[in-house]
Every structure is written in structure tokens, then in C-alpha cells.
């Protein structure tokens, strides 16, 4: 466990010189980010409540620097890899839940979409290592 901490710390430190902005907080050990709903491959009619699950870490308000906690981001149809040195982008494909929401009503146009959760720290940076969910694919009827 201690070695693990060191590895994380070392990883965080090594990330520092790469970019002046790399300042993600260390992730909780055994943190698991997942979709409570919908499930991978689900077909959904119309709008739906997307529910975010997180184990091993806590959810807090963006800006609050509590240890081992962060806030959710939902990435819709995002293909670009996550840049660990930048705050998680804010646009129509990167939805932010900085008030500590753990669910959201989502409306997507009909068709296939991918969803992925990313946990951000107080400053919206991904954790180190990033706490991300599996990318799931859903179909909207």
C-alpha cells in the first residue's frame, strides 16, 4: 500500500516538469468510477437519467479541496484522449457536475452515442492516475 502511494507520488512528481499546469491530485487507491445506469449496450427511448457510481472516493463541490474526493464529468461522444495536464474541457460534449451531482437528465439525439465518466479534482484536473469509467455505448431510439 505504501509502495503504491510512492508510485502515485512519483508519478505525480514526474508529471510536473512535463507541463507547468500538471497538478492533478492523487487518485484514491482502488477508486472505481462506473455507470449505475445506463448499462453498456442499452437502447433507450428519449431522455434518461444517467446515474454515476463511484467507489473508493467521495463526491464534493468543485473548488472544495477535500482529500480523496472530486466531481463528475460526463463525456459524450468524445474520441480525443484525455489530456492529464489540462483541466477537463468545458463544452457541449464535456458536461460538468461541479455542484456534486451524481445523476443528470440527459437528452441526446437518436442514434449511437458513447458515454464516459471522468472524475475531476477541485481545479477540474483529472486525478493522477486518471479516475475514468469504462466507455459505454448506448443507442437512443
Amino acid at each position, binding site marked *: 500500500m505504501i509502495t503504491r502511494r510512492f508510485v502515485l507520488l512519483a508519478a505525480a512528481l514526474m508529471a510536473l516538469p512535463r507541463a507547468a499546469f500538471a497538478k492533478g491530485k492523487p487518485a484514491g487507491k482502488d477508486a472505481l468510477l462506473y455507470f449505475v445506469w445506463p448499462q453498456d449496450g442499452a437502447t433507450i427511448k428519449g431522455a434518461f437519467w444517467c446515474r454515476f457510481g463511484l467507489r473508493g472516493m*467521495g463526491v*464534493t463541490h468543485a*473548488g472544495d479541496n477535500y482529500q480523496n474526493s472530486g466531481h463528475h464529468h460526463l463525456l*459524450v461522444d468524445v474520441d480525443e484522449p484525455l489530456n492529464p495536464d489540462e483541466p477537463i474541457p*468545458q463544452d457541449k460534449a464535456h458536461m460538468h457536475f461541479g*455542484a456534486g451531482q451524481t445523476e443528470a*437528465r440527459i437528452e441526446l439525439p437518436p442514434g449511437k452515442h458513447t458515454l464516459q465518466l471522468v472524475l475531476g479534482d477541485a*481545479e477540474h484536473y483529472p486525478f493522477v492516475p486518471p479516475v475514468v469509467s469504462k466507455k459505454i455505448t448506448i443507442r437512443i431510439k
Partner: protein
Amino acid sequence: MLPWGSRASFRGRTIIHVGKHGIAMRGEIRDINSSKGANPPDSSVPRRLAAIMAGDIAAYSRLMQLDEEGTHARVKRIERDLIEPTIREHHGRLVKTTGDGFIAIFDSPVEAVRCGIVIQQNMVGRNTSQPRLQWIEFRIGINLGDVIIDTEDVFGDGVNIAARLEGLAEPGEVYISGGIYEQIKHKIVCGYESLGDRKVKNITDPIRVYRVLPDPAAFNRTRARRQNTLIISLSLLLLAGAGGVLWYFIAQTRSNIRYQTAAVETSPTLPSPAESQTAPPIAPAAPQPAPATVPDTQPATPPAAAKAVSEPEMITLPGGTFAMGSNDDSTEKPIHQVTLKRFAIGKYPVSVREWNACAEAKACTFTATGKDEAPITNISWSDAKQFAAWLAETTGKSYRLPTEAEWEYAARGGTRTKYWWGEQLQPGLAGCKNCTEVAMAELPSKVGSFKANPFGLYDMGGTIDQWVEDCWHKNYQGAPTDGSAWTEDSCPSHVLRSGSWRNDARYVRPSNRDSYDTNVRYPTHGFRIALTP
């Protein structure tokens, strides 16, 4: 494919999922006073101040009747997987468990309440997979009190009050006493609803009870409901009073209004660039500020000796009618006609220097670092409102945030095209990720780094996201057509305009709109100021 037009409406439940960090040893948990118990050499009973949490399962007997063994097993599992580890993670100690409940103590009221919220919200998640009848719902009460701690139990008035609070609580809720409330009110992001003083069994003095609302939106809904009648009666009273004052103003400004109407009629709907550029970048010219449209912080009369403060450069725009919205995105539909009155808007986004003047006056909450002339960033909507209120107060002028309609009208600069310069993206006219020859890597170091639009306004699209007064609505269905802000009593998210240096060209369009949580800061968010002349 991007979900262009996809939106999330937020329900701010702060459900916190807590990890299962193994099973705690009972001895370890019960070991609440080992540190104390081992030390005190004196025979006096050890007393201490603690936050006491009492929890029990609502309708436990009904659940047992339904399925005795199943319920017992589920309750035990919840205790093992959720209650015990959560209490431990919040530095609390489980003192005892009863068949359907538990008592825990915490050194910190903040941790105690946070723990209560975690338990409750985790239970929501656990229950969703079960039929309604089989839901296990806890009621939780938390009190701050002086207690006597024994190896197996904890005693004192404080414990009884916690238990009474728990009895008052609705299933799935956390009720706290006044003492706890005083300790945590500014420390935990959630709402609190005061339930007033309650007399409880066998406790002499009534206790002040608060209901914890982990979702601030729920808090506001409750408050709105409760205060509605009050507000209505109050506003009726105010209206009666304001009527007289208004009459006076109308009489006084009638000539002025006549002048404005004329201006709207004579000024073409689409003023030409040349014409609008000649619009003098003046500050307020109207003889009377219009108090009705001013934030309520605006004093009735300007302070006699307003402190000298450098005001943002403003450009006054004539009123007019324009087509707001577009068919490019579902959030921008339907296109609708909006007629606005004359207003002034900041020539640039608010800069670091301007913001820091507010911070120095202790009216804005933080001092920004960065170049003086760079746009201020990392601003929440509430921060922007603070700045506007401060500026209005120190200058005695009706400074405020622009409305969404005003922003778009100003950004279009009299044009109806996709961008203010035409239908096609042209490099170098705005600050966005792919609007320039060389991709923008960072925020421009100075406001006004790109070309001004036909109204002479800079950074209306790109550079920095800008807050406006309006609450977020997912489209314009039901939007006002008089240029006023579309607001509700309280809304969890507000509208952002302009897009930033980190967004692509689609966000630079004057009709583009986006939303963000009202109280959350983000590094690409800033604002500009408006003024009712």
C-alpha cells in the same frame, strides 16, 4: 458524432458512494473510549463534547413482517458495508447498534453531518434496485452535546436529543440540532431548512431543528414554496408603495421615453458598422436611472461621496429589434424577435485589474493573479454578480450583468450571419481553438486582442466564456421578447456566452449558448458588465 444539442438538466443529488474497506472488528469499533478510558486516573466519569448521531430504520417492524430473515440479513449487510466503514471514514466511532438502529459519536460536527449525508444517499442507490415496499430507509438525527462515554454505551441529554431528532426525521433524511447547524452552516455545501423550535418528549427546552438538504436546489424549491405567500403579500405591499414612486418617474421620464422610442424607430434594425462605430462610447447619459431593472443592491440614491473607481469602458447601444437564436443547434431554437431598450455594455470583458479593484475593496472574494489587462478568469456566476453589485454601489450607477438577449444583440453587431463577419470562419478574427492560424494554446494576455465587431465591442465570441444574467433554459421555448433576463427565483445553472480560447469555432457564433453551475468556478469563465443608462 458530437451531441450537438444534447443537454443535461441537473438534479443536484450529492450521492456519495463509499468504498468497502473491509469489515471492521467489533472490538475496534466499540473502542470509543480506549484513548480516554486508558488514561483517566481519576474515578470521575469521563465527559466530553461530541456530535452524536442516532439512526434507525423507518418501518422496521413492517419490513420484518414482510421477510424476517431477508430483512435481518440486509440490515446486517448495510451495517457492515455502509454504516461502519462510513462512520470510520469520517473519524467517528460506532458506539452501539440495536436491532434497527445505531448510535455513533464524532469529534467534528462537519464530519458527522457529512457522514449522515453519505449514508442516506448511499441508501438511495441501494434501494433503487428494490421494490418500494422493501426499501430500507434510515432516519438520522445529529446533535452536539456533552456526553458520558461508557465502554458499551454513551449517555446524557445530548444522546436523547439526537434520538428525538431522529424520531422527528422523515425516512431518508438527516435532521440536525441548532448546535450542529451553527458549527457547519458555512462549511458544508448543502441547504438547510429550519423547522423552528420543537418541543420533544422529556426534554425541558425546545430544540431548534434543521433539515439537511444535500441538494441546494431542493432547498431553494422548499424555500420558494414556503416563502411564496410571504413574497406575494410583501410584493403587493411594495407595489402599492412603488406605484406612487413609479408614477413620479413616469411623469419625469416621459419625454425621455418618447425620445428613446423615436431612436428605436429611426435607427435601422441592422445598423451599419460605420454608424454604430460612431456611437459614442459614453457612460450613462440618461438623466434618470431606471431602478426597476437594477439589481436590488442598487441604493435608491447614489451615495453622496462615491469612492473614485475606474469604471470599465462602456459602449451605449441604441435599442432595436433583432432575430435571436439560430437553427444551428437545438438550444438556439426557436428563432424569435426580441425588442430591446437602449443599454450600454462593456467594450471588453472585465480585466484582472478591474476585478482586483473589487477584491481590494473586499467586495469580491479573491484576488486574481495574472496580467492586469488579461480577462479575469475562473469566475462563477455568483462571483460576477458580486462584482456588478460592487460596481453599482461604488459608482451609484445601474451596473449589472447583461441579459442573454442583450449579449446576443451586442455580439451580432447588427448582422444576421453565422459569425459577425459573415458566414465563413476567417482566421484571426476571434480567439478560439481553431480560429487562428496557429492553434491557441492559452488565454490571450490582453482583452481586445482581436478585431472589434461592428458595434466596436471586443471579444464577443471566443477569448473567454461570459456569464449573463439569465437562468439556463434548454431552448427559447417561452423566452421573453423584451430583452429582459429570463430568470427564476433560483436556478442551479446560468447561461454562458461567447465560448473561450479552448473551444472550437462553433462556440464563437453569436447565437451559441451554453450553461454551467451557478456557484462553480472554471478557468475559462469570465464576464463583461452592462449598464442601464
